[in-house]
């Protein structure tokens, strides 16, 4: 499994750095927000966590079709699926998700505090938002695995993956922003939504790879 993770990381970094594109898209969302909303610094600080979450979410969604694409193109996806007699396919998918998150999700988490400055967010808000992103972006990857697997063979699967995954990712977004706001807005809790968010990540870490392995097996025909 470790070998698979390392291989995927090497492949992902080599082939066009989807992590960088994700961060650039994240930056675009964060950068246009002040132009759209106006330079009201207080307002920006207030909605800062939400904007960071939206940017990170969209950037993650865009990167999802890369999850299986490289392997599909060179045929190694079939090899991985066939190898399920040695190692459960769900574990294989889990490993791919871990690698994918390290390449696309983690850069977003690292970039978040820097972008928080652009939105005039106070330190506690930035810290809380980064923490929620750290816990929540893996959930997006895991449930995205399900979406990517059912659309793996489609020509324009990338767009469809976002549409499919969106309903599942909405609760993650809700709790992520709630937790982030809980750290700054008086009277709203931080721990409860944060725990919910963590629970969701754990839940999807099981459901996503399981569903994806099931879907990938169907590709065998």
């Amino acid at each position, binding site marked *: 499994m470790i070998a698979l993770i390392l291989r995927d990381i090497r492949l992902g970094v080599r082939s066009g750095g989807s992590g960088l594109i994700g961060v650039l898209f994240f930056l675009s969302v964060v950068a246009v927000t002040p132009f759209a909303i106006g330079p009201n610094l207080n307002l920006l600080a207030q909605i800062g966590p939400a904007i960071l979450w939206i940017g990170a979410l969209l950037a993650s969604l865009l990167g999802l079709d890369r999850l299986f694409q490289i392997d599909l193109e060179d045929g190694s996806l079939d090899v991985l699926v066939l190898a399920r007699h040695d190692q459960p396919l769900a574990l294989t998918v889990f490993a791919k998700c871990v690698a994918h998150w390290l390449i696309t999700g983690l850069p977003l988490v690292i970039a978040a505090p820097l972008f928080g400055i652009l939105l005039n967010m106070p330190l506690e808000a930035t810290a809380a938002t980064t923490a929620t992103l750290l816990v929540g972006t893996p959930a997006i990857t895991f449930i995205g695995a*399900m979406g990517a697997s*059912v*659309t793996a063979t489609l020509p324009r699967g990338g767009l469809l993956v976002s549409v499919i995954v*969106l309903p*599942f990712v909405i609760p993650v977004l*809700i709790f992520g922003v709630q937790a982030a706001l809980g750290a700054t807005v008086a009277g709203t809790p931080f721990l409860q939504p944060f725990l919910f968010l963590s629970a969701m990540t754990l839940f999807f870490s099981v459901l996503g790879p399981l569903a994806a392995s*099931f*879907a990938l097996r169907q590709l065998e025909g």
Partner: protein
Amino acid sequence: MSEAISAPHKPTGLTALANPTRFMALSAKIMPWLWTLAALLIGVGLVWAWNAPEDYQQGITVRIMYVHVPSAWMAMFVYMVMAVSALGVLIWRHPLADVSIRAAVPLGAAFTLICLVTGSLWGRPMWGTWWVWDARLTSVFVLFLMYLGIFALQRAMDDPVKAARPAAILVLVGVINIPIIRFSVDWWNTLHQPASVIRLDGPTIHPTMLWPLLICGVGFTVLFFAMHMLGMRNEIRQRRIEGMRRAGAREKTAQPMRVVVDEGGAS
């Protein structure tokens, strides 16, 4: 590859319907009854609803309940029908299971849309707002998005047989939303009112309102089954048409000499 239409080995229960031709024959007989029953139930239900007493607090707007609540029930019920059909696709490999899902998706989306719109129209005079992002409304909205996603996925692939299993998996993964919708009003502090019909302690609605509501609910259910059956028949016919066109094209390429007068036919 040709798992789409196959003859059953044991002709009992659902496997008896596995043969599309038998399904077409049976459904042709049953469907008129379903439509009639649906019209009857909904007609009676609506008349009774309009004669039911106005709500003490809400006045006449409570009458929206008689469309809003049944459509909400249907939104979830249709999804459960799709979930069972999805099991049929993946586990039992029932040939008509995928046809069932395909026919059900637009119906479920429509009921969800009716639920959302009538709910919004009820919320405006009642709560003073067209929409609020509380747990119940958000989860029903998410359900609507799921219907659209399944719809998109099924039609993204040209061959419906290939699309069957991915779509079934998507349906089953989304089932977790249904209990969330159901219990959202209990688990969270929502603007939407808590459950008042299907509760452990029994319904809290007065019988004079409960009965027309239930009749409308059953009427909507029968209506769904009638529309579902019609949709399945359409889908089966459509697949036959496509099969025949492909066979016709193959015939023509195999025997080029016979392609004389064709009147711009199967192309």
